[in-house]
């Protein structure tokens, strides 16, 4: 039953390929929608049993360690449902825009199958295969419009991604030599109760570095802003909203499987550093999509910080918050990319400073953008606030926690900056066409989801914890006095920071910083140094 979750999108992809060959322009859309719908139905059907006990299947009847095991538990079933539903909405957007044919449907569905497979895999090599399926379709999707710059971004991502995956394979090699198994459950059993050997530490470092190039945390994030910024709009939404989350679920499982390796200590540093570095770089961008892409990096820092709480006393609420933030980020980041995508395709301009006063011309798009911006900034009554509050409740003790507060302030400031596109008097030529009605349903649906989660924070958080079987000891008062005061301070300081950042003197300074961009070689060096750094941290901390 659960192998259908991977198979159905692949069948859809095959039909899309046939549609490409026969030049049938609607068959692929029908196949895509049908396969995603049926897959969602299958996922819903198995959710109940997945949450209570977890469902596992040995593909083709071959039992592990020879065969491939796919496993669905509460957390993955939420992930699977989020991927299917948001992918469907993104696909709707792509078709409504009109410039995406059967070829796109094929690669899109392959990417979806890759994500689902990755989330369901339980052994390291199978994860490698699905990582590569996912990345291959990602490279193709980024270059889909054949814009030269996007093609180069795709090529650079391919090189960095392949180096990352080579490190990952190297890690798998050492692990297999040490333990003789590949399943993460078996690795957890093999390493239980022992101090990790140096080989084990290096293997884990290589695997973390490899996944790092996929999920883009510092210092492995360098490819992301260019790739996600240059990709076609629906692709940016798919990559930023969903793809990195699939990698994070894998990371979560691996961190859980090797508790003896001091990964959480590493994440306690890398998480806040990623968050603050991402937001600072986002603040100085003038390109709308690149600003959003840097925010993806920054938000991944939050999630990583939540993982750092694994195994500590207040773990439940931070881990649940961080996983819940993945769902929420999937919603609001795809929403932001799609609304900004509409703005860019309607006006033909990408720079923030080139646009103003669009709110009156496209009120519904502006409203959806405000929902997304409020969610990412952590404004109460929107979904980002719920998971961020849970996260901060569990991570307050961390030494680097102040960096997360700075990140919140920076996020507010940069979204006030981005909102100038919709505010003020219109400076753009009057020749902008009205937004076609068929573009609205996806963004309105996602925006409604953001608000629905935000309006009932206690209930949705409790439901999420129950589905994922993560018990939260603390109960959080989402609308308590202290939380409100904190939020108000962050918003106020964020507004002041916005005034400072947009000051002409400073903006000339940062323009120089923005131009400094990394080529292929420096990025590869950064990945290698990152691996060496992670390995060194493990060696030092394991003593």
């Amino acid at each position, binding site marked *: 039953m659960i192998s259908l979750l991977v198979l159905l999108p692949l069948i859809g992809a095959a039909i899309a390929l046939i549609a490409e060959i026969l030049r049938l322009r609607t068959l692929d859309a029908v196949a895509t929608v049908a396969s995603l719908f049926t897959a969602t139905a299958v996922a819903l059907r198995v959710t109940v049993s997945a949450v209570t006990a977890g469902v596992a299947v040995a593909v083709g009847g071959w039992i592990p*360690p*020879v065969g491939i095991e796919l496993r669905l538990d509460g957390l993955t079933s939420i992930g699977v449902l989020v991927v299917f539903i948001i992918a469907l909405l993104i696909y709707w957007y792509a078709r409504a825009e009109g410039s995406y044919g059967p070829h796109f449907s094929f690669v899109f569905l392959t990417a979806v199958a890759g994500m689902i497979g990755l989330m369901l895999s339980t052994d390291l*090599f199978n994860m*490698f*295969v699905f990582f*590569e399926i996912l990345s*291959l379709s990602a*490279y*193709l999707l980024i*270059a889909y419009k*054949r814009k*030269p*710059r996007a*093609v*180069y971004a*795709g*090529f650079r991502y*391919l*090189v960095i991604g*392949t*180096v990352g995956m*080579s490190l990952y*394979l*190297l890690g798998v*090699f050492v692990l*297999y*030599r040490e333990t003789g198994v590949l399943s993460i459950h078996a690795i957890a059993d093999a390493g239980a109760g022992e101090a990790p050997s140096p080989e084990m530490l290096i293997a884990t470092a290589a695997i973390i570095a490899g996944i790092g190039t996929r999920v883009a945390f510092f210092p492995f994030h360098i490819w992301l802003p260019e790739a996600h910024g240059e990709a076609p709009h629906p692709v940016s939404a798919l990559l930023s909203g969903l793809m990195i989350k699939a990698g994070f679920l894998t990371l979560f499982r691996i961190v859980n499987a090797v508790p003896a390796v001091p990964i959480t200590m590493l994440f306690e540093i890398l998480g806040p550093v990623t968050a603050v570095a991402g937001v600072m770089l986002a603040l100085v961008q003038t390109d709308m999509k690149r600003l959003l892409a840097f925010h993806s990096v920054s938000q991944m820092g939050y999630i990583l910080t939540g993982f750092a709480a694994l195994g500590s006393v207040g773990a439940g609420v931070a881990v649940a918050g961080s996983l819940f933030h993945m769902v929420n980020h999937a919603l609001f980041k795809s929403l932001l990319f799609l609304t900004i995508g509409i703005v860019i395709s309607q006006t033909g301009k990408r*720079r923030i400073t080139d646009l103003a006063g669009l709110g009156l011309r496209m009120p519904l798009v502006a409203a959806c953008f405000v929902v997304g911006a409020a969610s990412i900034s952590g404004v109460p009554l929107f979904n980002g606030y719920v998971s961020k509050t849970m996260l901060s409740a569990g991570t307050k003790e961390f030494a680097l926690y102040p960096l997360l507060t700075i990140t919140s302030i920076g996020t507010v400031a940069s979204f006030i900056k981005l909102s100038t596109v919709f505010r003020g008097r219109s400076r753009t030529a009057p020749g902008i066409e009205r937004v076609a009605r068929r573009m609205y349903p996806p963004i309105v649906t996602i925006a409604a989801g953001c608000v629905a989660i935000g309006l009932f924070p206690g209930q949705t958080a409790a439901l999420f914890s129950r589905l994922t079987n993560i018990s939260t000891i603390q109960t959080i008062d989402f609308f308590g006095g202290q939380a409100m005061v904190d939020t108000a301070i962050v918003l106020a300081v964020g507004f002041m920071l916005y005034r400072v950042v947009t000051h002409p003197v400073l903006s000339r300074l940062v323009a120089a910083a923005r*131009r400094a*961009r990394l*080529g*292929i*070689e420096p990025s*590869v*060096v950064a990945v*290698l140094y990152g691996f060496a750094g992670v390995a060194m941290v493990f060696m030092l901390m394991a003593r």
Partner: protein
Amino acid sequence: MDRLLVGIVFLVGFAGLLFQRDLIKKVIALSIINSALVTLFILLGSRAGSEAPILREGRLDIVDPLVQALMLTAIVVGICITALALVLSYALYRSYGTTDTREIERLISEQEEQQ
């Protein structure tokens, strides 16, 4: 000794990636890294025995079949990546008229300045 050799091949791949500016040569470098990894795994499997893992009566001294199965997949993945990388390189050559990465990066930043 043989492991040292694989290590050298691995490093040759990385050197190619870092010091060759040509797109095609970078793709070749990626391919070399992939081959080094495949060899490393096969080497690991070969320690377990000396004969091919085709089970017959009396044949017990076999190499580890699992790594061979895994590497078959890794080779396929590697070919896909090489093929796609070459397609992207060709597309880049068609739009920029060169396969030199520095040159392409320079052209991209020039275009950005103009906007």
